[in-house]
């Protein structure tokens, strides 16, 4: 594929929509996996971004709230560097679910690789 055609595809709205949809589906798994270690929102975002899963604050915080409501995360307000921060980590249920999700993820990846 020539560079100009490749650039055109990346600017294509259809590609962008599908790309976002694909990433959106993987976000809960990425967040749960990253929260095996305790993080507060901003450092969690930075960790995810460092691993190529950049996520904006408007998406992350509602997702964290939803996962916490579902009992997969626990959170705690704590002072650090003279500022109150909300720290998140996996709950026991979250650990179990993450384990199952990772198996599911590997199955999906294997299936997709078979199809490709």
């Amino acid at each position, binding site marked *: 594929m020539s560079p100009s055609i490749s650039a055109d595809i990346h600017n294509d709205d259809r590609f962008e929509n599908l790309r976002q949809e694909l990433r959106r589906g993987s976000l809960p798994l990425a967040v749960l996996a990253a929260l095996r270690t305790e993080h507060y929102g*901003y450092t969690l975002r930075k960790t995810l971004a460092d691993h190529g899963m950049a996520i904006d604050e*408007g998406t992350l915080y509602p997702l964290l709230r939803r996962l916490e409501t579902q009992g997969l995360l626990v959170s705690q307000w704590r002072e650090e560097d003279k500022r109150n921060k909300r720290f998140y980590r996996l709950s026991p249920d979250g650990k179990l679910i993450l384990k199952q999700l990772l198996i599911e993820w590997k199955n999906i990846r294997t299936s997709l690789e078979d199809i490709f």
Partner: protein
Amino acid sequence: MALVDRYLQAVKFWLPRKQKDDIIAELSEDLRSQIEDQEAELGRKLTDTEVEPILKRCGSPMAVAERYLPQRSLIGPALFPIYSVVIRSLLVYFLLPWLLLWLGITIFSPDFRADHPGAALFASLEPWWLACTYSLFFNTLVFALLDRSQARSHLVNDWSPRALPSERDHNRISRGATLFELTITVATLALWVQFDTFHRVFHIFGVTITLSSHWPYFFWGLVVLTLAGIGISGLHLSTARWTRLSASLRLVIDGCAWGLIYCLFRANLLQSLSGSDVSSTEAAQLVNSLNLWMASSAVWVLVIGILVLVFDVRRILRVGGTA
């Protein structure tokens, strides 16, 4: 940081009351961390101009707050397809024909325009507006209530593949319907001829009605067209479906029939009336009034005829599309 505080205040406005402070504290912490990181890189405080892109990237206050709210809709995706069919049917089979009828009368009837000068012409459309508003409002209300009630689960979940309607074939004509149509047409034709209507003079309840000399043309024209209609029905008895030929013939017959009826209404058909109880002056006035009434009603015939022809053309396109 005044810009950040203003931003957070705007987000806070849209948030659910119980979660306001918690969400704002967390969002505030994130924004301030971003700003501090950039300030550490630059070695100075950020200006408002530099803070602005950070807030813009975060999203409009309403959009940010909306992500914390549960997904809401007036009519959910389970019922929306039914709602959409009901509203479309209402528009296509009720409101649109009404509007077209009004347009037809407005365009073709000088009397109607004279009776409704200026703004009164649009005021004459008021019942249509009211029908639009009420029908859309009540349908939406009913579906919104249904969506929030238990009825939704019955509607959406209680189904069986065997209970689904059979496959639709728009071009199929049931032989029963064709036989019914044929019976009615033949009976009408028999009555038409039996009452001796090809003569110009009728005697009804002691009154003698004389029609104009054009009457035989209309009479025989309608007889021929009715016979042609019987021919099409006969064809449908054997084929049991619309074909391109039968649909085209139907268009021609309907076009001629409605054209003929339109001319008949405008032809001053009544020539004279006479009877023992009616004076000649009264009879002349009555003849004049009846002819005038028919002429002014011709516009209705034209509008109905056009609607019939539109359906006929649509049928030809449909048959052509599936041929």
